[in-house]
Structures are given as structure tokens and as C-alpha cells.
């Protein structure tokens, strides 16, 4: 009897795992199956054409803009904040508050960020629906990710490094940027790369702050659409699954490259360290 129960449970475990893998393979497979046919040099590097048949270069450029701008702002802030939390702050109420705020930010759904961006950056700061408004919104979204990954990697730097450096008479600041930060670099870098993934995948927040203009952005103050938003809109407005899937292929490949790079960097640099 017990044996039978065990067997059933074991069967269920195999079944569940099979189901998970099958479903996920099916989704990625479907996107590639539908979309790969459209992928070509002209599709990726061609300008968008409203009459159809054009490329997705404007969306790629917009996506790159949002990544660069939001990381440019979020990276220094995030790293320094993590440094404060790990290296400078005395544990206490202030640190707890900051930690709580950071964790809460992680849990907020992106549509709420979108609402906030729409009223704060777009309307109150008068940036209008624009790449810059979306990027600033994204900055807040990835900030907790950067803070957390940096903190984690700062934790892994051995105490002896700090003590050794300080014993040599360096100041705390010198120790920080000559010893601690370089040792924590792999972790920080993979955190940044994961943030890029988050930015690329974001849709709701960008939809409400950058708008949907399907054209090459003239500047960062232009309204524009990113790849993900484009994929959403061509599905919703035109029902063009093939085009949406083709954009999806580009997105999945980008995410794959980013993840592999993150893994590679942390492995490579870890080896270099020890």
C-alpha cells in the first residue's frame, strides 16, 4: 500500500516536471516557429513602415536608449546605496527602513510604477510621454535589483581584505574603491545584466510613460515604443501574431545572451579572483 502511494507520488513528480518543461518548451518553440521566418537583416536593421513590411530598428534603438539611460542613473545610486548599507551604516532603525523600502519597491507591480511615472515624470515634471520619462520610471524599478545584488556580492568579500587594507593605513574610501569594489565586481556586473533583462521585459510601465509612437525617436524627449511594447501592440491592434513572435524571437535571444554573459562573467571573474 505504502509502496503504491510512493509510486503514485513519484509518478506525479515526474509528470509535473515533464509538464513544466513541456509547456515552457512549447511557448519558446511556438514563438520561434512563428517568428523566425520574418527575421532577416532588413527586419532588424530596417526602419519601421506604417504600410507594413518594415523593420524594427526604431524599437531596438528605443530599447537601447531606455537601458542606457536608466542604468546610467541607477547603477551609481544603487552601488553607493549598497555600499552604505553594507560598509558604512550602523545597524538600526534607519537601515531597517531603507531595507524595508527597497524590498517593498521590489514587490510593487509595474502598472503601479506606470501610474506613478505618468503622473510624476510625465505630468508633474512636464517631461511628456517620452523615453526619458520611461527611463526614470525604470530607474526606480531596477534600483532595488542593483542594490540587492551589490549587497550580496559585498557580503562575499572576505573580512580579511578589509582588515588587511585598513591595517596598511589606507582610508575607508581607498579600501572601498581599491579593494572591496573590485572584488565585488563580478556580482555587481551580473546584477547589472539582470537589470537589463528586467528593463527589456518591462511593458506596462513603459506603455504608460513612453507612449506608443512607432517611429525613430528624434531625441530622448520623444515618445517612442520599445520592443516589448511593440510586440504587445502588434498583437493587440493588428492581431499580427507572426510579427509579434518575430519581435519575441529578438527579445528571447537578447535575454539569453544577457543571461549567458552574466553567468560567464561571474564564473570568469571568480576564477580570476581565487
Amino acid at each position, binding site marked *: 500500500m505504502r509502496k503504491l502511494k*510512493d509510486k503514485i507520488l513519484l509518478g*506525479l513528480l*515526474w509528470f*509535473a*516536471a515533464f509538464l*513544466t*518543461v513541456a*509547456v515552457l518548451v512549447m511557448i*519558446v518553440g*511556438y*514563438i520561434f516557429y*512563428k517568428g523566425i521566418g520574418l527575421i532577416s537583416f532588413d527586419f532588424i536593421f530596417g526602419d519601421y513602415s506604417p504600410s507594413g513590411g518594415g523593420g524594427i530598428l526604431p524599437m531596438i534603438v528605443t530599447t537601447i536608449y531606455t537601458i542606457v539611460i536608466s542604468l546610467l542613473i541607477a547603477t551609481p*545610486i*544603487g552601488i*553607493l*546605496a549598497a*555600499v*552604505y*548599507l553594507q560598509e*558604512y*551604516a550602523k545597524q538600526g532603525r534607519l537601515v531597517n*527602513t*531603507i531595507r524595508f*523600502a*527597497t*524590498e517593498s*519597491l521590489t*514587490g*510593487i*507591480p*509595474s*502598472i*503601479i*510604477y506606470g*501610474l*506613478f511615472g505618468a*503622473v*510624476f515624470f510625465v505630468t508633474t515634471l512636464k517631461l511628456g510621454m517620452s523615453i526619458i520619462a520611461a527611463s526614470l520610471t525604470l530607474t*526606480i524599478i531596477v534600483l532595488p535589483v542593483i542594490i540587492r545584488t551589490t549587497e550580496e556580492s559585498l557580503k562575499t568579500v572576505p573580512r580579511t581584505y578589509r582588515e588587511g587594507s585598513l591595517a596598511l593605513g589606507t*582610508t575607508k*574610501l581607498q579600501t572601498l574603491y581599491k579593494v572591496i569594489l573590485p572584488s565585488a565586481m563580478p556580482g555587481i556586473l551580473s546584477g547589472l545584466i539582470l537589470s537589463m533583462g528586467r528593463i527589456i521585459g*518591462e*511593458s*506596462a510601465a513603459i*506603455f*504608460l510613460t513612453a507612449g506608443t509612437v512607432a517611429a525613430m525617436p528624434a531625441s530622448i524627449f520623444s515618445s517612442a515604443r520599445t520592443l516589448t*511594447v511593440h*510586440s*504587445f501592440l502588434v*498583437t*493587440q491592434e493588428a492581431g499580427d*501574431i507572426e510579427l*509579434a*513572435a518575430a519581435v*519575441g524571437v529578438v*527579445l*528571447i535571444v537578447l*535575454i539569453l545572451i544577457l*543571461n549567458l554573459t552574466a*553567468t560567464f562573467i561571474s564564473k570568469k571573474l571568480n576564477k580570476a579572483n581565487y
Partner: protein
Amino acid sequence: MSSIPVKKDAGEIGKANKRKYILEKVSGRVFLFCALLSVVSLLLIIGFVFYKGSHPFIAEGYSFIDFLLGSDWVPSEDKFGILPMIVASIYATIGALIIGVPIGLFTAIFLAEIAPRSVAKIISPAVQLLAGIPSVLYGVFGLAIIVPFLQNNLGLIKGQSLIAVIIVLAIMMLPTVVTVAETAIRAVPKAYREGSLALGVSPIGTIFKVVVPAAKSGIMTAIVLGMGRAIGETMAVILVAGNSLVIPTSLTDSIRPLTTNIALEMGYAFGTHQEMLFATGIVLFSFILILNFVLARISSKGGN
């Protein structure tokens, strides 16, 4: 350290030290400022969303109870009731949990305990990767495959329905649930398993009676995170929900959860209508805050 300072004036050293000291102090402040920015952001977000969303009830005389319990949402006729959306959000989330959690959890157990190392080494990172795929693509898949399947093979009159939303959300939460739960199960000390096996408990029995209970708090975290993902998801849901303003009474009704109401109408709403969308955001926000609170309780318990 290429050169060693040989001899220096005492005053010069003092100056250099002072400069260093000031630098230390200033940089400490800068770091603190950066750390405080996340607190400021959170306060700004809460402040703006609540300010905008509470305005109609404070200044324009709308009743918050009518807003929560009203079943008519007709902005052009000044009717703002979000009960259908609240019910839709709750049903969709619970439904997704019922399907997604057991499958995700069992997959996690499989990967951590049963699967050969080589298999787990391929599947685990692959599942992690899937957590990073833009959610919109899950919606595209839902619209292209699940909706027609429900219509053509199961005979639903419309594929855009509560059940379609549940399936898409369940699939979307899988990677999160699997990844977090797997980590938790792997963290259970080996001694637990060995002790149980030594007592003559079967391997499967050990997993379900010893390992899983030991990983309980991690597994709960996985479930809460998956739930957060389901309740907050927007764009994928828009594509498969149908967005009808009806209080769902069956799995085949098309629905409009809270998130999609905001995304659908924010583009053109203004005045009171727009403020009511922020009020919708407050309700959604409250759900998430409750979830976060639960999560904090769980993790603090797990810590003890």
C-alpha cells in the same frame, strides 16, 4: 604603490590628512543620500498614487464604499464601481495558484531531489531563463494558442475568459515558483534526509514528510512571490481576458482584472476618470502591501 614618500613637512601631511578626512565624511554622506533615494522613491510613489486616487473621495464627494462595491463602471456616465474587477482579480489569482503552485512545487521537488544531476543542471537554468522572458510573450502565446483552443476544441463561445487568464498566469508563475522553491528545498541540510532514511522511511516518504516541511518557509515565499506576479500582471492579461465589465460567475466569463482596467483606460482618461484609475491602483496596491506583509511575517518566522 610605485613610489614611497620620503620626507614631508608636518603641515603638509596634516593638510593631506584633513583633506582625506573631509573626503571620507562627504563620501559617507553621499552614500547615505543614495541609500535614502529608495525610501524617497517609495514615499513618492505611495504619496502620488494615494493623493491622486483619494482626490475624488475627499474633494469631489464620491463614496469610497460605492467605488469598492459598485458593479457599474461607465466613466462617460460618471459611474465608477470596481467590484467586477476586484472579484476578477481575486478569482484569477486564486485559480492560477490552484494550477500553478502544485505543478511548480512538484517540479521543484523533482529537480532538487529526484532528477539526475545532469538533467537538473540543464533544466534549472532553463527554467530560470524563462522567468526573464517578457510577460507580453506569454500573452501572445495565450491569444494565439489558448484562446482558439478554448473556442474550437472546448466549445466556449468566447476564448477570452477567466479560464484563459488563469492558464496564462499559472504558466507565468511557474518559473518563479520552481526557482524559489527549488533553492529552498536544496537548502535543507543533508542530515535531515539521512536521519529519516536511517529510520527506514522510504525516499519518497522522506521527501514529503521531512524535506518539504523543513523547507516550508522558502516554499511559502515561492507561493507568495508567484501570487504577486499573478496579481500584478497586466499586459499579458489584457490580451486574453476579454476585458468585459461583468462580475464573473463562471470560468467561461470574460473578465477585467484591476491591472488591465488601468492599462486599458489610462491612455485617454482625464479628470475624475483618471483619478478613479489611480484609486483602482490604490486597491491593487493594498493587495500587494498585504502580500508583502505576509511575506515579511513568513521570512521572519523562517529566520527564527
